[in-house]
Structure formats: C-alpha cells, structure tokens
C-alpha cells in the first residue's frame, strides 16, 4: 500500500504538548514539511523561544537551543554569524517577538540577517495564562485587561509586519492564517519563501501566522477559529508585504 501522508522527517517523534485546537501544532508541521522539501534538515538550526512553544527545539529533529524571552533573533544572529552556511530559524510568539524582544526583531531585520522567523500571533500571552499581548485587540478581555483592552490605558494593537515592511533588510514578509485548508497551503508556501530568502542570501524573512489560543481565549477550538476569522483578520489583514524572492 502506498503511504500518502506521514510524519515529516524534520519532526521528532515526541508528542506535541499543545492544547487541543491550538495552531502551534499545524504551524510546526508546515515548517517541518518545508525543511524536508528543501532538503535542509542536516544544516538547519532552530532557536526556540520562551512561551508555549519553548519545547519546539525538541519537536524538530534538527540541532536547536532555547533563547531567553525575546532574544531568539539575537541568539540566531550569533549562530548564523558563526556558521553562515547553516540555515537558522526562530519560532516566536507575540509576547516574545513583539513585546520584550521588539528591539532584537527590528534590528535583526534591519541588518538583513539571513534568518527565517515564524511569528505566531495569537493576540495573547499563552504560557503565562492569558495576559495582554502587544497584539491584543481593542476591547479584548484578557487576565490583565479584565474590562477589555483600551487604547487610553494600554495602547493600540501593534502591527509588527506593517512596521517591519518599511525596513530595507527584509527580503520576505507575509501575514497568513491557518484556519482553512487553503490558508494552510498558502502558509506553507509563505514559510518556504521565507526560508528561500535565507537560502538565497537575500535577507531577513518572516511569516506572521495568526493563530488561536482556545485555552486562554476561553473558547472551544471551533469558536476560536471563528473568532480569529471574524475579528483578528480585520485588525491584522493577511497580506504579502515584501517579496524579493520571486517565483
């Protein structure tokens, strides 16, 4: 019998520890498929963040390490500068990349570091129990915005991709979702391009993936999908911002 669907080689055999309905698992799989298709498993090094995906370095069957909260792109820069022939990627949440690590993000992008970043935007801090993130929507309730986020007190949702799109060092930048099959396939294409931007030496590549956190949003997986499609997509429209990779 022909096998038509199997675990990608680049995923280890550890079981994911993510909650049911969480998008981290889908995104992990897409990255692993891209690594397999590009045949770069043996020269890929991953930098895991602090946040729910801290275990990512064990889920991928590649060399890896864990950076301090927010510093994945600095750690990745150190690795890539030491070993320019390696393919280095970071996997970061919105708290990690857009709050504590925003300086590292902007400067790695601005230096045009030949790195790939997968930015998982679930509009909330997952691991620490659902506090406000820079990307939390106005009016959205979190454990630290119990009455809903207000612009007056908490500021506005931060549009990281829009901000990075003005930076010359960026070679590929797209915002996607993984809510429908079509979106999943499109996200995979985007991830591939973000890796190609690195492989071709063009500069910094990032894909922002809008994702659910059913646990901290207090929703079922299906409700969370719908909430994402009805609310997050309006605030953070999926879009190709920068494409220097071409077809």
């Amino acid at each position, binding site marked *: 019998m022909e096998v038509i669907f199997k675990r990608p080689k680049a995923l*280890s055999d550890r079981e994911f520890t993510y909650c049911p309905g969480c998008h981290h698992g889908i995104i992990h799989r897409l990255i692993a498929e891209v690594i397999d298709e590009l045949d770069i*498993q*043996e*020269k*890929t*090094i991953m*930098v*895991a963040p602090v946040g729910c995906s*801290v275990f990512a*370095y*064990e889920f*991928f*069957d*590649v*060399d*890896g*390490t*864990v*950076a*301090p909260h927010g*510093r994945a792109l*600095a*750690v*990745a*820069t*150190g*690795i*890539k*500068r*030491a*070993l320019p022939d*390696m393919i280095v990627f970071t996997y970061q949440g919105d708290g990690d990349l857009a709050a504590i690590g925003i*300086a*590292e993000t902007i*400067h790695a992008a601005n230096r045009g570091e030949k790195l790939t970043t997968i930015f998982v935007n679930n509009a909330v801090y997952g691991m620490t129990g659902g506090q406000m993130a820079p990307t939390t929507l106005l009016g959205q309730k979190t454990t630290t915005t119990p009455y809903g986020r207000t612009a007056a007190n908490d500021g506005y949702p931060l549009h990281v991709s829009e901000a990075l799109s003005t930076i010359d060092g960026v070679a590929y930048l797209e915002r996607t979702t993984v809510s429908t099959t079509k979106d999943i396939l499109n996200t995979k294409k985007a991830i591939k391009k973000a890796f190609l931007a690195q492989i071709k030496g063009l500069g910094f590549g990032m894909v922002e993936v809008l994702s659910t956190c059913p646990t901290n949003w207090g929703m079922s997986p299906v409700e969370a999908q719908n909430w994402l499609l009805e609310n997050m997509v309006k605030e953070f429209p999926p879009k190709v911002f920068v494409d220097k990779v071409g077809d």
Partner: protein
Amino acid sequence: MKKLMMKGNEAIAESAIRAGCRLYFAYPITPQSEIAEYMARRLPEVGGVFLQTESEIATVNMVYGAACTGKRVMTSTSSPGFSLMQEGISYIAGAELPCVFVDVVRGGPGLGNIQPSQGDYFQAVKGGGHGDYRLIVLAPSTLQEAVDLTQLAFDLADRYRNPVLILADGMIGQMMEPVELPEMRDLSTLPDHSDWALRGARNREPHRIAAFNIDPVGLEKMNKRLQEKYRLIEASEQRWEEYRVDGAEYLMVGYGTMGRILKSVVDSLREEGIPAGLFRPVTLWPFPKRRLKELAKKVQLIFVVEMSSGQMVEDVQISVEGKVPVHFYGRMGGVVPTPEEILFAFKEVRKWK
C-alpha cells in the same frame, strides 16, 4: 620576542585574536570602547566577525548563539552594560557554553562615572544573574598579565565549558605599558567541541542546548552536575601572586589595580623596617582561599584595600575564618587610593592594634 607599547584595551583585544577568537559582539561604553574599535579594524583582517549590536542584551545573546557553535567568542563592556548582560550570563552558564567576557569596571552605582572602580566585584563573583551558577573570574594587575590572562580565559572556558570573565578596571583599560604578545594560535589546534556544538545534525542525532528542564528533579540533577564542576574548578584553578610575604607580620590584600598600588605600599613599609607583604588574588572566583588561610596563621593583621566600599573583603574574612583581624580601607566613586593615604590608614590601624 619584541615588546610593544600598547593601551590596555587594545592589548586585551589583540591577545583575544591571537587566542583564536574570531567572533566579537559588543555595544560601546567607556572606558572600554577601544576594544570594540580595535576589533572592528582587526577582525576582518583575520577572517573574523565584528558586530556592533543594538544593546548589551542583544550582545550577550549573540555571544550565547555563537558559543552554541563551539567557536571562540568574546564580548567586552563596562559596569552598566555588564548589569544588562546578567540574564544572558545565567543562561550561558546554565547551558555550559564556553565564552569570554571582559568587564572594564567604572564608578557606580547607576550611570556613575567613567573612572576606574572595583564596584562590580559582587555582580562578577557572586553571580549577578539568577540561579546557582559561577563564572571563572580573572583579575589582571598589569597589561602583560591582562594579555596572559586573556589567553588563559579562552583555554579555561573551553576546558570547563564555562563562561570566563576578565574583571579589569578603567585604569587597566586606559593605561599604556610594554607588552609581549603571544604567537597567533593555529585554529586547527583549538578544542573541537563537535560532540555537543550546534553545527547541523549530519550523520548524527540532533544536539540540543538549553538551560531548561520543566521537571524539578531533572533540573536539580543538572544543577548537581554544575556544582560538581564548580568544586573541581575550585580545587584546580585558584591563582594568586605573593610579594615579600616571607617573614611578613602584616599582609596587604588587593586585586587588579589595587594590587599593583599595594606593592609600592609594601616596599615603603619594608623600607621603614615594618615587615609587610602582599597577597594578590588573580582568580576572584575561585577565590584563592587555601593559600590565604595558610598565610593568615603567620601574620598579625590583614589589611584589605579596594576601590569599593568593601566587597572582596568578605571573601578574605571567609577565607581566614576569624584567625586574624581583617581591616578594610576603600575609596568609591572612581577615586583611586594613593600609596600615601593607604600608608596613613594602615598605620592608624596598626597603632591601635
């Protein structure tokens, strides 16, 4: 071998390159910026990487990343910058990565000033970051020693897979002295580290590096292994210098720049017929406790001088276990005590003894 007249910061930079350091990341801060400027000029000549970072927080994490590859990497900074690096240093020590830090200490606390000081002893030696970890800390008192200890720093970092700190002060960084530089190391002779480094999992299982273990028993196990390593370092790496301790009744103790000033204090006292000697710790961690404890049995009084309110003096007290009185004299805020004022302070203490 011919001697070159060099500035301290530049001598440390050149020595690092000759020790095989090809990766340097840093953010400018006085009084050590010449290290960065020298590296920016020199590293491209030897095929190395120089990168001026956006902050010390980014710096220490780039050092972490580069150290994950097992290559020789260094950064340098001064006090406020070193404070910012502490979280990353905890991660690096926990992940057991070899790398070298240079802290050219300035006056504090806060923005303080840019004059020489020894006020960073606590954060260097007692662990400024979180958790149970240790840095190996080396304190040069001359530029030749700064050159030699830079070589040693890289070797110790590799031997123990542990971060090593060269703790200097603005005086060491800024002054000029003749130094003899070592030969350029052949990179192929350096420790390889391919058994743990991140270099792509070709024909082997993936390597994973992290100071992280969600299971408390597992994390304790990792900590126990770290502590075993620290005991081994304490047993094997205590270093110090003694000067005219034969027949000494009074023992001066000081490190780095203070150590060299105390040498002239000892000479003056000896000229007056007062039997004084000097004990200068070279490793601040591990503190040279063993030898200091032996010497404590032979002297009547120990006189510690520091460019701080008294930080190392606590380690002296611990080492001598109350066997002899320990007195302290210190200046702060970037003031360097003169031999005359130290003599005066010492004689006051001796009068009352």
